[in-house]
């Protein structure tokens, strides 16, 4: 049942004519879905690693507060993204069941929800933890909502390359919550996620290119074709694999991390090569699916190894 009125303009909620407010049928689960919990899990995990590997000590309550604010800030970005992209989401099979296009949450409700959480997450992080970390969080939200969602996503096939920066900031914010500054180590963590984003999303883009074309989103497979996308995936993975090893190279991580980063980087490269090589039949879909699935594992494995390596070093067991 849709509660969005016939006259509701989903494409540009801010510019829509006034629509009489109807009783909301939104459930608590719908509001939680606006926070994009699966994306949030990656944000929280990488921020946790950034926070724990940072030099110095942070009280568990302060650390928990920082993580909560980062998670809520990421959720706010997701809600604002869903508000703005409701028209796109409605025509894509992957996103058509989201709360706004499904009619369970009205655009104005999502906007108010996202904006409120964004302001509160930044303010609470600043007041209780660190204003530097809060500034980074506010920039991340700004970048994701205004630069990626409102500008890049609909205008350039480089949308997820540049927009990927927003997803790469959380470990840096976690680090800054402890140290109050940013050094080489969090920049390396940023670069790993930044370079990981294109192969990850373009593998999905290869699988869902019809969806993106229908929604007029200029993803690389739609604009430049699948073959060019495969080439770009391979190029970015060729840069990602050595970048993944960089924390060991710069002395920020030990052998355990180095071994995991090398193994996962080699696996990413092999799967990217298969995506590049297999261009006909069912193998092409299978290769893209495998790369997409492993890319999720890659970022979790590499950051988990970084955390484990750091903990071992603090216990005097690292090499």
């Amino acid at each position: 049942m849709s509660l969005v009125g016939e006259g509701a303009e989903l494409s540009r909620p801010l510019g829509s004519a006034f629509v009489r407010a109807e009783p909301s049928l939104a459930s608590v689960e719908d509001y939680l879905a606006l926070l994009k919990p699966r994306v949030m899990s990656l944000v929280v995990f990488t921020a946790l690693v950034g926070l724990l590997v940072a030099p110095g000590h942070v009280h568990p309550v302060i650390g928990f507060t920082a993580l909560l604010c980062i998670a809520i800030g990421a959720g706010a970005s997701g809600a604002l993204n869903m508000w703005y992209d409701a028209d796109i989401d409605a025509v894509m099979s992957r996103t058509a069941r989201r709360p706004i296009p499904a009619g369970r949450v009205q655009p104005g409700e999502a906007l108010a929800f996202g904006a409120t959480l964004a302001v509160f997450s930044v303010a609470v992080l600043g007041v209780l933890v660190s204003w530097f970390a809060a500034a980074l969080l506010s920039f991340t939200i700004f970048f994701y909502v205004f630069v990626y969602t409102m500008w890049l996503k609909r205008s350039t096939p480089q949308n997820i390359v540049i927009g990927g920066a927003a997803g790469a900031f959380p470990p840096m914010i976690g680090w800054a919550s402890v140290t109050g500054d940013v050094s080489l180590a969090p920049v390396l963590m940023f670069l790993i996620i930044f370079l990981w984003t294109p192969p990850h999303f373009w593998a999905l883009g290869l699988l869902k290119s019809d969806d993106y074309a229908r929604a007029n989103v200029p993803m690389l497979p739609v604009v430049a074709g699948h073959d060019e996308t495969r080439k770009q995936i391979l190029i970015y993975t060729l840069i990602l694999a050595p970048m993944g090893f960089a924390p060991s190279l710069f002395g920020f991580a030990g052998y355990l991390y180095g071994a995991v980063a090398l193994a996962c980087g080699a696996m990413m490269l092999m799967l990217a090569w298969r995506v590049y090589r297999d261009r006909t039949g069912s193998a092409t879909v299978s290769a893209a699916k495998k790369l997409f699935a492993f890319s999720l594992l890659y970022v979790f494995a590499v950051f988990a190894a970084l955390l484990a390596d750091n903990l071992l070093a603090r216990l005097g067991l690292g090499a």
Partner: protein
Amino acid sequence: MTEAPDDGIVLTDEQKRRRRARSIAIALSLGVLVALFYAVTLVKGPAVLIRPL
């Protein structure tokens, strides 16, 4: 001549149930926020007023 009374918007039972659930969620969120500020104040002690960049 009498006009029919305007009852305004009448919520269905499902809408009432979901509104109640949303209200409880907001109350819990505010409770967590209060508890958070209380806990951080205890942890920081007098240093709660020192907020370095």
